[in-house]
């Protein structure tokens, strides 16, 4: 190549570079009034009748739809939303027998398509969830409890329950599944078909919320625009969720100013602390206890090769208590959770009604007590090998590794195999009944009422009680079940709190889980965002973008 050709090439390269550089300032002013959020999980669906509890779609549904009631920041108190009053016995909106709830509705509200909101839409929305009854949804929060829904008039909606349920408002009215959709929009786009998802509603929300969905580029981003016709306080800025981001890239992006807010977890706090312009915000705890389950219903021949435990290994309460005593809670909370976490009692998360700060909890490693219990149970000399299945590369896997270290440090004959598998494999394994592993690790699904946790994770006839055979292990399964049932039916808050406190003691003495901790609710954001507040009762990431103002 001659010098002349070399010079020509250099000139072309310089010209291109100059063009690119000159173009950069033209792009630097964008996104001034849009909050860019680095999200962890993309929604699978935006249909309240299809959304899975705890999944990414709930966060978007929270912003584009309203429900009859809401919770604000800083408190678990129920607030009016599309209903103008919170039903209570005192205001007469809960009937004397506790079965009928009346909701006076807000007038002058319109859906994003301009149609008027009325009681018909409420009835339609809830009936639709029940009729579709999709397996991935939380339809049972309505179908298991509701006997009848009624339109009294255009702005009065009534619901009658099958039985008295103290948790109804928190467990059934507040969750995203109970969001109010536009009847006209649904009927014009596929209607309601039992057992079948509605593809239109899956990606075209028509709600009354402070935001409306404008674009959704799959696996890339999703944009919400402020709803100028919103009935309540107007949001400050638009929002764009960016998906598919590696957690490290999210953190880098926040530091570079490309994101205004990011979903992160405590393990990244060290990377963000002291970074210029970055604020780390922590408020409360996520309502998703990180737990390890004990299977008391192991089928014959199902355990992985190498597991030596008998099928009734966890029937013995001493074994379960020994595991709880052996776990190194300090290492988990101060290590993996970077100090953002706290252990809750079995099984009532901190921040939920009825949590008793004086309840006994397993929050300190006590190897001496663990050894005593293992010896008493007769497994000390022979030892055991047991596998725990978990999603690989997750915080839950770290919890299992800490358990492994904790147990194996006690006795060289004790062995824990941590079977890390892909998420899809894990989900499929846990959907089996009975489960073919002795132990597994995950987090609980968030809920606003203690009965949701007690019924799901502690009741001998509940979802996990039935699968894991809690009745094989409880000293008195009937009494435990009766107590949890009574808690669900007690409408007097004071009496109910006392019963929940009792349950926490009972479950401490007879634990069916090992609870590592409740993870702290942590987020990180740029200092040009004001109004930041998070509320663990809001769907993860526990943020409400309508309250935040970007002043870059």
């Amino acid at each position, binding site marked *: 190549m001659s010098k002349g050709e070399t010079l020509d090439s250099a000139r072309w390269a310089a010209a291109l570079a100059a063009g690119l550089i000159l173009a950069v300032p033209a*792009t630097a002013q*964008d996104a001034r009034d849009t909050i860019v959020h680095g999200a962890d999980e993309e929604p699978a669906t935006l249909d309240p009748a299809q959304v899975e509890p705890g999944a990414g779609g709930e966060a978007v549904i929270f912003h584009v739809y309203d429900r009859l009631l809401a919770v604000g920041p800083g408190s678990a108190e129920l607030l009016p939303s599309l209903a103008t009053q919170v039903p209570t016995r005192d205001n007469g909106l809960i009937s004397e027998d506790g079965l009928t709830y009346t909701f006076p509705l807000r007038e002058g509200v319109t859906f994003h398509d301009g149609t008027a909101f009325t009681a018909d839409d409420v009835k339609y929305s809830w009936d639709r969830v029940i009729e579709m009854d999709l397996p991935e949804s939380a339809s049972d929060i309505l179908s298991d409890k509701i006997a009848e829904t009624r339109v009294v008039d255009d702005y009065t909606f009534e619901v009658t329950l099958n039985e008295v349920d103290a948790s109804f408002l928190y467990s059934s009215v507040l969750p995203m599944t109970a969001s109010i959709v536009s009847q006209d929009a649904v009927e014009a786009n596929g209607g309601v078909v039992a*057992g079948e998802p509605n593809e239109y509603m899956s990606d075209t929300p028509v709600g009354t919320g402070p935001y409306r969905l404008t674009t959704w580029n799959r*696996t890339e981003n999703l944009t919400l625009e402020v709803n100028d016709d919103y009935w309540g306080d107007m949001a400050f800025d638009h929002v764009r969720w960016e998906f598919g981001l590696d957690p490290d890239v999210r953190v*880098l992006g926040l530091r570079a100013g490309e994101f205004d807010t990011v979903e992160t977890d405590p393990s990244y706090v060290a990377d963000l602390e002291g970074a210029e312009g970055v604020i780390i915000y922590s408020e409360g705890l996520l309502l998703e206890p990180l737990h390890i389950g004990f299977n008391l219903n192991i089928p014959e021949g199902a355990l992985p090769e190498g597991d030596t435990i008998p099928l009734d290994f966890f029937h013995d309460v001493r074994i379960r208590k020994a595991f709880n005593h052996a776990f190194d809670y300090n290492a988990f909370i101060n290590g993996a959770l970077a100090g953002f976490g706290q252990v809750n009692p079995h099984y009532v998360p901190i921040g939920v009604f009825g949590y008793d700060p004086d309840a006994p909890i397993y929050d300190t490693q006590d190897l001496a007590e663990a050894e005593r219990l293992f010896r008493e149970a007769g497994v000390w000399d022979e030892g055991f090998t047991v596998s725990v299945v978990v999603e690989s590369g997750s915080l839950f896997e770290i919890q299992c590794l800490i358990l492994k270290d904790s147990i194996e440090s006690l006795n060289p004959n004790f062995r824990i195999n941590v079977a890390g598998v892909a998420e*899809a494999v894990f989900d499929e394994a846990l959907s089996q009944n009975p489960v073919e592993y002795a132990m597994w690790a995950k987090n609980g699904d968030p809920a606003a009422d203690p009965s949701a946790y007690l019924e799901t994770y502690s009741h001998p006839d509940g979802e996990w009680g039935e699968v894991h055979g809690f009745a094989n292990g409880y000293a008195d399964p009937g009494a435990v079940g009766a107590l949890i049932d009574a808690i669900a039916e007690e409408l007097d808050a004071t009496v109910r709190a006392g019963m929940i406190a009792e349950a926490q003691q009972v479950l401490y003495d007879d634990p069916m889980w090992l609870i590592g901790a409740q993870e702290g609710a942590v987020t990180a954001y740029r200092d040009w965002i004001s109004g930041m507040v998070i509320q663990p009762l809001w769907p993860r990431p526990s943020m409400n973008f309508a309250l935040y103002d970007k002043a870059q």
Partner: protein
Amino acid sequence: MQLRDYIIRRLIALPILLLGVSIIVFSLTRIAGSPVGVYLSHEMSQEEVLQIEQRYNLDKPLPVQYAYWLRGVFQGDFGWSGVASAPVAEVFPAKFAATMELSVAAAVVAVALGLWLGTYAGVRRNKMPDHITRIVAVSGASLPLFWFGIVLLIVFWANLGWFPVGRSTNDIWESIAHPTGFYTIDAILAGSWTALMDALWHLVLPSITLGFGAVAIIARMMRSSLIEELQQDYVDAARAKGLPERLVLKRHARRNALVPTVTVIGLTIAFLMQGAIAAEIIFRWPGLGRWMASAVVRGDQATIMTYVLFTSVLFLVANLIVDIIYAKLDPRVRLGD
């Protein structure tokens, strides 16, 4: 065999080969386990799992599932992507366009820089420029793409803020239509200089990352081939006839040196598409690679099957094109023999 007949024979064999590949891959993915997992949550009951299986025909025998899948392919229905939460056919074109755009940009970087470096080094054999080129080539071949990309990301994006990450600035992207899915082409069609610059600016880091390794391979091949050609008798004859050195190089030596280099270029471009996975993850490029990485981890078999089918077509067609170019460059090559 005539070139035309050769092409026809290869095109006839293509669907048969694809059918064989699809059966093998379908079987292998099912050996790994049921694809239902990506649609489940861990709290589903067995009855709910069965409902999901019925929805996606996963409760049928394997040959029937394959037949459903094949029928869907002919109808343009490639199944439902659990990762993208949308039909695969709806998501694939945009992802493909993004990956192709990145791969083409990386290929342009690799070919332009590789040929230039290789030629530059070849005519300055064993002099300082040749040594420097060798260092560049070795580092390009040795540096892990992932590491190199993250270094560029940290330096030029996170710290200096010179280059962006992702494919576009959202507002600029939304300001033009996207009939082709290729941001650069769509910007040109829309007559938007801002969008074109935005597209090119976003391409800089990922295309350098992806293309750098290929630069090394192409440069080395070009250098070796050129050195060999420059030692041939016809080059001496051309010089003896008084032809300027630059014409000896441009019209004779370099053209012949390109013959083996083109083969390498063809293979390299094909491998660029695979290497795009890492570049897409690092730079948040919304292409097939990133989508596929998630699909593999999460067991999204509908997406995996479509990707395998697509890349099989691509490889077979790419090989055919390379063979044709090869024959055109060197008339001595006989096809189909």
